[in-house]
């Protein structure tokens, strides 16, 4: 992975976060939540800083980051698209919706378009099963999405 230069500002912010949790190793998950809030993702460089601040091994941090699906080591697109793959959405055709997003944006699940605009991911149940199948773009929820409706969603953000 190419070395990413972390801006001094954000680095200080990260260190302040660690400090606000008393550099306690048991607070690792809380620190990671905040760190992902600052950087948008958790590249190796961020993990190294956290490991040093909390006085634990980088392997420990990496182990936790990769264990939980909420944490990501890859930057997301400007408009992150998440398709719900909970059971209710699955039986109401979520897979066909995913296929359509993949086809339209030419990316696979977990990838970002080359222009950095869209990333496509799956998630498990947002609890809006009445609206299945559900798609999220950022925080906005789209309900009862059909494969035909996918192009309209993309068009809304492609401008």
């Amino acid at each position, binding site marked *: 992975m190419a070395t990413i230069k972390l801006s001094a500002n954000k680095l200080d912010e990260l260190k302040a976060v660690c400090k606000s949790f008393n550099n306690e190793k048991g607070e690792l998950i809380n620190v*990671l939540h905040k760190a992902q809030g600052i950087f948008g993702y958790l590249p190796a460089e961020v993990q190294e800083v956290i490991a040093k601040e909390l006085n634990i091994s980088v392997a420990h941090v990496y182990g936790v980051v990769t264990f939980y699906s909420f944490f990501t080591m890859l930057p997301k697109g400007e408009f992150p698209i998440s398709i719900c793959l909970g059971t209710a959405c699955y039986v109401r055709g979520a897979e066909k919706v995913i296929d359509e997003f993949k086809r339209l944006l030419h990316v696979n699940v977990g990838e970002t378009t080359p222009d950095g605009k869209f990333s496509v991911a799956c998630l498990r149940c947002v609890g809006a099963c009445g609206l299945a199948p559900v798609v999220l773009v950022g925080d906005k929820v789209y309900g009862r999405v059909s494969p035909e409706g996918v192009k309209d969603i993309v068009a809304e953000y492609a401008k």
Partner: protein
Amino acid sequence: MSKYKMHVLVCGGTGCHASESDQLLEDLKTIVTEKGLDSEVQVIATGCFGFCEKGPIVKIMPDNTFYTQVTPADAREIVDEHLIKGRKINRLLYVDPENQEHIADSKHMGFYKKQLRIALRNCGFIDPENIDEYISRDGYEALAKCLTEMTPQQVIDEMKKSGLRGRGGGGFSTGLKWEITSKSVSDVKYVVCNADEGDPGAFMDRSILEGDPHSVIEAMAICGYCIGSSIGLVYIRAEYPLAIDRLKTAIAQAREYGLLGNNVLDTGFSFDLELRYGAGAFVCGEETALIHSMEGLRGEPTVKPPFPSVSGYYGKPTNVNNVETFANVPVIINKGADWFASIGSENSKGTKVFALAGKINNVGLIEVPMGTTLREVIYEIGGGIKDGKKFKAVQTGGPSGGCLTEKHLDSPIDYDNLIAAGSMMGSGGMIVMDEDDCMVSIAKFYLDFTVEESCGKCAPCRIGNKRLYEILDKLTQGKGTREDIDSLRNLSYVIKDTALCGLGQTSPNPVLSTIENFWDEYLEHVDEKKCRSGQCKALLQYIIEPENCVGCTACARNCPVNAISGERKGVHIIDQATCIKCGACLEKCKFNAVFIK
């Protein structure tokens, strides 16, 4: 509350929120103020009403009018017609699908008639961000009663007598769990609320936290009093931002009222709450894994015993209960164990909340007495199968449960019956499937989930489930054999017997129950290479009916892999070896000449 003549309750649950109920709420408030009604009419956001299919829901009190699928554009009409002129708006009322009658009062709707709401008692009635509304519905009375009139052992005895069992899936007696933790000797003990709802298709815990957070806070304090703990921790999914916000607000209000913190209600009892965030791992619903996650580690389970009641969070005795379990506690104390034990079936007392979803008319959150039959739930409450299709199966218990069929429809739902039928209660997901669903694919879907969510610590779960998935995939590709089905079965039993935690031990349930109940479908996939519901793409064949084909060439021109050949004005043929089954030909043919076999 009493100074208002009318109350407009707008559902602020996640489902309705996603359909612009927040905008609707703002618009209603603005218009009410604009008309100078704000001293008489109160507009508030409540928790989930449960009838998510017809959301956003607006309820008007005191006349109990229930409006469905309300949009921000309807706000003005509601104010002008209903609030000012007192005329109900017919087009927004629920229409009974049976006789097309408009029903104004939710009590007369099929969806609500059979329900009994205990855990959800306040969802959709109160403003979850206002502690006074909770208190006005007997809130914190149970805590006061416990602290001032009962000893911890008396409370535990009451809980045991009520017969309440863990609603998170395990079904262990709540009173007994409290008793074991109370008897563990330690300077520090913890009360933990498991709000890491990871079961795809289940959203009851989230709805309780969003709609009635104080009931969980009150119950945790009662539990703290019983086991001798002064610290409660709520382990909640970071993916539930609305629930987190409401819980934070509620905790702050409870502290302000002296219901949390030092010297609660001047009784000398101290108890406070903290939040811990999950980060998306299904296995963290298992209590030992959850505890490790709270300690900042990977959420891997450990062998029990020792149970958390003896050695849990940082090695201290820890009592872990699920959100819905806690929500039942204050009512049991207020109304008594005998009242609670009079509801339900012999060994499963009280009610259970189910998230009813899938191919069903009335998707939503329901609460029914234990012992209600699946038929009542699916047909009377759920309003039957969508689009008049045929019922095929209902899946309960999420990735740990199984698929039940027609023959189980009349058996009463409780912990023991579901296990006897090869499924389990789980946290209460209930997904209905119709004739268009392929049961082999459904089993594969759940295994895909388990493989992804397996923590990888023990080999049976890490490797075994992956192999199960691969065999199921082979079946859906039309490459399976009868031996494969035998392997599926054998491997499933081995995983059940040898996996470390509950996730692994139950992960083969979807496979075993579909083999048991849909044996024919498995055989068709293997022997005839056929998928009756048309879900397994590899087993489909697109064929051109020569009699209907006019040779317009539309299909050939649109085929992405040039699998279709034929002369202009002549009959076309699809080369099955090249066909990728994309369906473009079927879509383009105007003469109904392409069909699927």
